[in-house]
């Protein structure tokens, strides 16, 4: 934040909503709530709960949720299970590629505290230390009803303006960055980016 001080005016605080749009904020919130496009990052066992969620029985498209191939167009990032350090690198890069506002829904107990992999050398214990989670669904593995409930919860939170993980990520970026660098070592982004360049 040191270089931002030259700008003076904001004192490092970033304002996301333009003053002119304040009037339309309820409309935007409703629109965001009703058009969640998902980036389904099918890690772990929750990927198997996605097909019943998408098909006729639970059918999340009636809530305006749509599977979406590109993180640039996504709003809702589903992390469907345990996260290894290697996956976490991809998750962080994908999360940062998404446009604001973006929401993150973590399935199951593994992203919360490691779950059954609590003493595994290769599973990240608290995902919240590395990227902000908006809603976490407990369970191993949550059934589609529970996932549906989590999605309803995130919609309620968006309406109330409480789903602010993307703001928290910006405001506390140094904290998240410090934790990420501690896990992966300094300069991991540059190394990863070099490997990704061929596909981007």
């Amino acid at each position: 934040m040191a270089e931002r001080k030259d700008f003076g005016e904001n004192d490092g605080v970033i304002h996301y909503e333009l003053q002119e749009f304040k009037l339309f904020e309820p409309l935007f919130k409703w629109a965001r709530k009703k058009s969640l496009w998902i980036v389904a990052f099918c890690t772990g066992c929750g990927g198997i709960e996605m097909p019943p969620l998408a098909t006729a029985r639970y059918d999340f498209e009636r809530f305006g949720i749509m599977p979406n191939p590109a993180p640039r167009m996504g709003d809702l990032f589903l992390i469907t299970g345990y996260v290894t350090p290697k996956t976490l690198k991809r998750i962080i890069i994908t999360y940062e590629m998404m446009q604001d506002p973006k929401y993150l829904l973590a399935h199951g107990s593994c992203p919360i505290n490691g779950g059954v992999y609590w003493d595994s050398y290769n599973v990240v214990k608290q995902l919240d230390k590395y990227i902000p989670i908006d809603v976490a669904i407990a369970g191993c593995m949550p059934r589609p009803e529970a996932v549906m409930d989590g999605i309803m919860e995130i919609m309620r939170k968006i309406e109330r303006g409480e789903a602010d993980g993307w703001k928290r990520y910006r405001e506390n970026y140094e904290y998240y960055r410090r934790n990420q660098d501690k896990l992966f070592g300094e300069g991991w982004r540059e190394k990863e980016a070099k490997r990704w360049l061929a596909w981007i």
Partner: protein
Amino acid sequence: MDMNGKMREEKVEETKLPDTKEGKLVKALIEKASYAEGSVRRERRVEFNVPAERIHDFLELASETFEMLMQISVVDWLKEGEFEVVYQLWSVSEGAHAFVRTRISREDAKLPTVMDIWPVAETYEREAHEFFGIIFEGNPRLGPFILEPREYEKHPLRKDFNMLSYVKAIYGDDFDRYDESKTNYVI
């Protein structure tokens, strides 16, 4: 002497191979390789125990009937101080699955590579090398493979790898399985 010979004969009588497809398979292989022991576990499953210094000869011989290498798995016997390396072979022509077991000491874990018999062994040997630290002599690509570089040196699937202290060093020690009052162990 005579007695001993008789005893051995009786024992051979007891562990005689069954008169099935699997028994014939094992018998044919054992006749060619007298250093190996073979047995039939059940239908379509056969087992061989081979000393480590002859493993390459045996696998070369076995590859005539067992055309496919499915997997190389390793068991860490900490008390015995040994690794048990299991080559799992599949015979497409006979429809039989063979476990070829061999034991090597944990301190000096070295085996010849079988890449010249099955080129696919390269990946399995790299995996066994990374997780257990077994050196397959002749495999050109041994080295860091799947894990993070810091885990490569530690061989995390060895039984004497202290998982919990490593986890606490990497992910922070603010997680445990106690409840909020730190009195009850939760799981």
